[in-house]
């Protein structure tokens, strides 16, 4: 319990005969004289300047008011003069007075501070207000006093601000939820886009399977023709010691292997819907893909010059998809050379370490970001000596449905898909007319297996954290905050 030994003296405002309550206050003060009157005036000024409503009731005298400051008068609309010496029943409606009396008694009985966090009151002067009230019992047997001290704070504005804050908080969290939902939607759309891209890649592939089918059929029919010749020979009866039989059986076996190879090539080519990255040797992939277009090469009398670097590092690729890329580029080269006569298709592989200048040349911003000088890469080049790309068409190469080929020779999706597939491999692709020579050069840069591993690890870490760590040499959240703090101090 709070000891109420406050030197306080109240003067009867009317200046008349001291009432019971002023006597009580004078007792509390315990001192008399001009000095005391001075102190009392000072306290009165202080109390009346406070932004809190303060009142004191004498529990030994029917809870009559013995103190009533200015703020209290403001809130209640009842002046100090109207309230002093009165009970709640004298100045409030009975219902309200009952409530106050009950609370006061409880406070005195318990001897504890009561905190009424929020009460709605209707002030005749201010209208509807919200208040926070503390009621504390002040007893001092020595002085013979039992008082209820009330302190009331008008929290209407605070409450409004608090509610506004709550509302804003909710709004914010609603917006956060909205952002989350958008995020989810975005992720979903990205997934859908990716799946659509894979479908597009697959659709383009099936289209080129169709275009390749005739050539592949031709490639299969030749070994079939040989097999039939072998069967005919053997069926016609064989003399003992006929040396041809050995040759025939060997040729037939080779023909079966050749037919199998070409059919399997087409099946592999048309399979695999998802992106399935595995370490692979690019040279043999380039070689296999040539088999699929062999017929077109033969038909157009195109010579193939293979210039493969031996012992290339493996690349992490989806072989079926990269084969699609290569076949597509071969077919483009062949079509570009079909009216040129005696064309030459050059396929070249090299391994190299990227230099700063190499990175700049690459098409596509994403590839540029992820390719770094110093990366070990494999470069595939496919060169033709055909009619080249008309200058005004260079910019449209990767546009969907853009084609210079006659109807039936291409969908116009070929290079769009080629670029997409190379992007999925985080490689780079450049197509341009050859310098000082006829024809087109295509350059594909693919990461080697080890480089790719490093690339994935970097991607997992949060780039901003990495950047901050790199720039400051610090790590962790605390350190980041400290950095910010220092900056704000410098600014101030």
């Amino acid at each position, binding site marked *: 319990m709070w000891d109420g030994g406050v030197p306080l003296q109240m003067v009867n405002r009317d200046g008349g005969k001291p009432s019971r309550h002023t006597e009580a206050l004078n007792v509390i003060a315990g001192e008399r004289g001009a000095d005391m009157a001075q102190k009392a005036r000072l306290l009165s000024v202080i109390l009346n300047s406070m932004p809190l409503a303060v009142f004191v009731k004498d529990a030994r005298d029917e809870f009559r008011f013995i103190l009533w400051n200015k703020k209290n008068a403001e809130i209640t609309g009842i002046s100090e003069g109207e309230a002093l010496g009165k009970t709640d029943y004298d100045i409030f409606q009975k219902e309200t007075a009952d409530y106050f009396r009950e609370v006061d008694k409880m406070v005195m009985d318990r001897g504890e501070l009561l905190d009424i966090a929020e009460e709605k009151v209707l002030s005749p002067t201010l209208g509807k207000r919200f208040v926070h009230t503390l009621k504390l019992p002040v007893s001092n047997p020595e002085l013979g006093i039992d008082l209820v001290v009330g302190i009331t704070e008008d929290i209407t504005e605070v409450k409004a601000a608090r509610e506004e804050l709550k509302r804003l908080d909710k709004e914010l969290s609603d917006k956060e939820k909205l952002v989350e939902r958008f995020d989810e939607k975005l992720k979903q759309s990205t997934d859908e886009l990716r799946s659509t891209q894979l479908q597009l890649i697959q659709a383009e592939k099936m289209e080129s399977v169709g275009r390749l089918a005739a050539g592949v059929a031709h490639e299969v029919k030749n070994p079939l023709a*040989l097999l039939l010749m072998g069967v005919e020979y053997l069926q016609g009866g064989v003399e003992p010691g006929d040396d041809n039989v050995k040759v025939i059986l060997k040729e037939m076996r080779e023909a079966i292997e050749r037919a199998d190879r070409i059919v399997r090539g087409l099946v592999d080519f048309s399979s695999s819907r998802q992106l399935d990255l595995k370490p692979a040797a690019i040279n043999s992939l380039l070689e296999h893909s040539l088999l699929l277009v062999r017929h077109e090469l033969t038909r157009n009398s195109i010579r193939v010059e293979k210039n493969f670097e031996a012992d290339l590092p493996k690349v992490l690729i989806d072989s079926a998809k990269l084969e699609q890329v290569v076949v597509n580029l071969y077919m483009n080269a062949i079509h570009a050379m079909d009216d040129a006569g005696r064309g030459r298709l050059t396929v070249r592989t090299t391994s190299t370490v990227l230099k700063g200048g190499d990175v700049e040349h690459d098409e596509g911003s994403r590839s540029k970001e992820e390719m770094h000088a110093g990366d070990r890469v494999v470069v595939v080049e496919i060169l033709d000596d055909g009619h080249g790309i008309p200058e005004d068409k260079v910019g449209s190469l990767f546009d969907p449905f853009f084609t210079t080929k006659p109807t039936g020779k291409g969908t116009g999706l070929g290079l769009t898909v080629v670029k997409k597939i190379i992007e999925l491999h985080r490689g780079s692709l450049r197509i341009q007319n050859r310098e000082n020579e006829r024809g087109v050069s295509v350059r594909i840069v693919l990461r080697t297996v080890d480089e790719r591993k490093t690339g994935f690890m970097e991607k997992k870490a949060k780039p901003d954290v990495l950047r901050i760590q790199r720039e400051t040499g610090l790590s962790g959240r605390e350190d980041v905050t400290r950095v910010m703090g220092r900056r704000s101090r410098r600014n101030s």
Partner: protein
Amino acid sequence: MEEQEKKKIMLVDDEVGFTTLLRMNLEKTGRFEVSIENEAASAIASIRTAKPDLVLLDIVMPGKDGGDILAEMQDDATLSRIPVVMLTALVAREEMSADAVAQSEAMTVLPKPVELEKLMAVIESHLGE
């Protein structure tokens, strides 16, 4: 059967295995003497040298089309009378070059794979046997 009665047949086809086995089959009959040219570019020169009684000509070959070779033969008075049977692994008529199609109106075009019996019948009809 006497040696000089054998008819000379020339195979022009880039498929080495196929020509080898076809020659074996034709020679097994004992009625033909077969020569082979696997390089389309050398075909005309080889035909001039060998002077065959009949040419079996593939259509799709690297360097030179069977149709081109046929046209050259027909432009050459010494070769234009040699009967030609065309062999092709092409699937559809539309796939043949315009030249080859025009020629094939008058020629016999046999699709690969071809039955020996059918091939023999065509060869014999061209040789007037």
